[in-house]
């Protein structure tokens, strides 16, 4: 569940053009060892224009669907990285597979919220106030620093089965065809689960909101104990594609010990 914000140019000019889009509910169940289980579901906000049902493609480990295993080193040599490429990754990448400058569509995440689907409890919500970016501040530290987030969960989080993640994002002047996110979670070198969400088409200069549901894989007590005892060994790569080409890569790591 990585989420990053980058500076947005001419945000004031685009403010008038942006209109909130529909809230699309999508379910992805792409367990590593699960059988085919594709769900698609869409709900409409009564105040917004209707949209087509969102399809969710199944993504899983390479041996499940015949996707060949790939390595980070191989992909770094490619001119373009496709969804099939990252679906073959067997472990967390050490490097980012694309630079911040490859986000040519100016996709900017402005709000993020996660909630427990069983109780509706909002677990976390964060937003980026407008006009908070100061020119030169981020480049002075590290261009990749804005693409990494860290969560410190309590052990109770591992007991949740379904978590809904609502993402609000804006896009630049170009229309976005087939916007898709593949997020892979690992504990050490073991792939826990791969999530595959499609955002679909995004209008230029628009603000969009989308909720994805994470179906967490069942974890044994031993694995949960290990994850709790070893904070930040649970990591994720979030790959974002437009027209099947990688445009963004965010990373996150997680602690479940409830402390530092």
């Amino acid at each position, binding site marked *: 569940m990585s989420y990053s*914000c980058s500076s947005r140019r001419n945000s004031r000019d685009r403010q008038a053009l942006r209109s909130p889009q529909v809230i699309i509910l999508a379910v992805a169940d792409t367990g590593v060892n699960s059988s085919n289980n594709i769900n698609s579901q869409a709900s409409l906000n009564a105040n917004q224009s209707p949209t087509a049902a969102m399809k969710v493609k199944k993504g899983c480990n390479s041996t499940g669907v015949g996707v060949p295993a790939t390595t980070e080193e191989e992909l770094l040599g490619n001119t373009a990285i496709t969804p099939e490429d990252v679906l073959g990754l067997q472990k967390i990448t050490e490097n980012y597979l694309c630079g911040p400058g490859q986000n040519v569509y100016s996709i900017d995440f402005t709000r993020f919220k996660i909630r*427990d689907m069983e109780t509706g409890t909002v*677990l976390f919500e964060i937003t980026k106030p407008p006009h908070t970016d100061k020119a030169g501040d*981020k480049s002075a530290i590290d261009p990749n*620093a*804005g693409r990494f987030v860290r969560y410190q969960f*309590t052990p109770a989080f591992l007991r949740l089965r379904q978590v809904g993640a609502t993402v609000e994002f804006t896009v630049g002047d170009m229309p976005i065809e087939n916007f898709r996110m593949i997020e892979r979670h690992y504990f*050490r070198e073991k792939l826990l689960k791969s999530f595959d969400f499609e955002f679909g088409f995004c209008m230029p200069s628009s603000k969009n909101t989308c909720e994805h549901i994470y179906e967490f894989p069942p974890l044994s007590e031993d694995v949960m104990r290990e994850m709790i005892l070893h*904070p*930040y060994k649970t990591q994720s790569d979030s790959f974002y594609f437009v027209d099947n080409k990688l445009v963004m890569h965010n990373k996150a790591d997680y602690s479940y010990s409830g402390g530092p």
Partner: protein
Amino acid sequence: MSVKMEMDVSGVSRTPISVLPAAAEVKAMLKPDTGDRPRCASTPCSPIKSTVSGFQILHMDSNYLVGFTTGEELLKLAHKWSPNPEKTLITTPTTTTSTASEALPSSVPKPMDLGIHRASRIYKAKNRYYQPYDIPVVNGRRRRRMPSSGDPYLRPLSQGEGGPGRALHHGPLPLCLLKGKRAQSKSLDYLNLDKMSVKEPPADTEVLQFQLQHLTLRSERMFTRNKT
């Protein structure tokens, strides 16, 4: 962390008070309070909002989530409290055996020592506030400086500008950020800035322009190499 109990003759405990809060206290501290919030010293009427690197945390359920931070904040803290953050705290993506104690540094940097010493003085002092400067005597009475919520000494180390406790609280630096740091620091190595002699005679404009052009081309090549 083990604590040795000590008592003096009068029965008053001399046990050093831990200034690093326990996990439960940390949870409570990180929970965004909607009620009483400390006021910052510069604007006494405005409450301090919960922000992380420009993002505003609207809600955090401490039953499930006790902390959130960004790469920027981690790097800032690492820069602030360690002369060489690459050597102190590293999260590697692959490990064979590891424990939570890996997150702790092997040696405590000096600023943390000072911070603990200073904070322990605060707790041990009897209703006295730390005064970093002398307050002039007025009418024969020495005034005390009133504490402000902006004082770093009064805040727990894991909160605000409290020091390396805050860095440790957020865990070690991830590998992807360390690699970025190394790449950035090395990108200027070819300039050999440390070897430049200050006694060199001033070069004329044409020579400087040629050198600048040469450096620009090299930096572009370095960046391209780092990207791939």
